[in-house]
């Protein structure tokens, strides 16, 4: 991964005050696209990694109430630590690497995902579970074929919230010099080049809104029964 060094942007007449100076946008497609790509990669890796970790934690939590309290409490404590602080603490440990961004981001998704998966699994009516047992489902088959599909709306709702939250948090990683769309904002503030601030801010909001709408659509498409009930 490359980071934005103090290299100059060779420009003829520099118009730093314009909110949107197309000349700058036109001459910096690579910088803008790289920031966007980094942002998307960080977000996707963090949410997928978060899901992989949350699923077993949530399953364990539904089986053992005491474990559930411990898991949610720990995830809640991580969630409370401001992201800039976590990025800042990890920079001297891992340096300016992807892991420095992704580790905290995964940590922040845990509370949201574990809570939603547990809520989804808890919401499955006991009579349905008994019916599945009566039909001779093994515990694993019951989990995969009865409980998980029924918990899906809540799980996707969690993925949706985690994704939008992560997109916002990733913006902050740039303050520690870790890339993403926030890097456009940081560069824009330092240069100063107001257009870069605008582009970074607008793209990060647009990304969050698109992710929210897209996952909302997925939620409806995957769970047609939830729509009928309402």
């Amino acid at each position: 991964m490359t980071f934005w060094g103090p290299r100059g942007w060779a420009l003829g007449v520099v118009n730093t005050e314009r909110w949107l100076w197309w000349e700058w946008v036109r001459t910096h497609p690579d910088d803008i696209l790289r920031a966007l790509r980094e942002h998307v990669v960080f977000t996707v890796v963090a949410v997928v990694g978060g899901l992989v970790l949350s699923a077993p934690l949530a399953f364990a939590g539904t089986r053992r109430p005491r474990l559930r309290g411990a898991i949610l409490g720990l995830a809640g404590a991580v969630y409370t630590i401001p992201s800039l602080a976590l990025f800042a603490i990890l920079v001297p440990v891992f340096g300016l690497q992807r892991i420095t961004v992704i580790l905290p981001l995964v940590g922040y998704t845990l509370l949201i995902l574990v809570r939603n998966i547990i809520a989804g699994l808890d919401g499955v009516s006991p009579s349905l579970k008994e019916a599945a047992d009566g039909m001779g489902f093994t515990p694993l088959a019951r989990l995969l074929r009865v409980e998980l599909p029924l918990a899906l709306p809540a799980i996707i709702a969690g993925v949706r919230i985690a994704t939008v939250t992560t997109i916002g948090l990733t913006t902050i990683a740039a303050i520690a010099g870790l890339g993403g769309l926030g890097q456009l904002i940081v560069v824009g503030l330092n240069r100063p080049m107001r257009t870069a601030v605008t582009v970074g801010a607008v793209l990060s909001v647009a990304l969050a809104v698109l992710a929210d709408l897209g996952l909302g659509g997925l939620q409806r498409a995957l769970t047609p029964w939830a729509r009928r009930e309402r």
Partner: protein
Amino acid sequence: MEVFGDVLSWFNDRANWRGPSGVAVRLAEHVQVSLAAIVVAMVVALPVAIWLGHKRRFGTLAVNISNIGRALPSFAILAVGSQILGTREVPVIMTTTTFVALVALAIPPLVTNAYVGMAEVPAEVRDAARGMGQSDRQVLFGVELPLAVPLIMAGVRTSAVQVVATATIAAVVGGGGLGRYIIDGFAVQDHVRVVAGAVLVAVLSLATEVTLSGVQRLVTPAGLRASRRTPRIADVSPVDPALQAA
């Protein structure tokens, strides 16, 4: 890794605690602006949200406003805000930009929680109060509000933790607070100062969360505390309208 040993020495050096950029002053700045922002946000948002929840109107808007708030990255708001409002420093509130951004970010969770808390008071409870001859006012202040208080406080907690975190980032656009150590430390590649600042910020956030959870427990009516240990709607930040819908 030896950074962390140096961080301990940083905390042991009394010079770092005193003076205009010492921990005492930075901490006070951070707490001041956070407190001011959360109080103003509460004064602005709570009466409206409580009233709307009481009347059960504009529910979709009230529930979705925290979705909208989530989609607006705080750093983007601060950066754009600084371009509009400038970065001139103001006593107590750091910069106008910071203050406005903090208030704006604090409002959505307050509105959603207060609305949901009021609107979710069971209809039969309200009807019972009505049937006992209570006026609209008495139902609002004597029945609905006490029952909604735990959720309202959960919103205050969510907002406050977020405000403390965002006040850290605000150091990018000027002003004081604990974020200064992180931002200035990065600027001069002083990782010891960065980590020391990060530790202070983390401790302040956790302290905020723990303190406000305590307050939340204290203001929860005894009857509610006995009937269920936690409020029905997940009280862990952030409130989750999508989950409730699902």
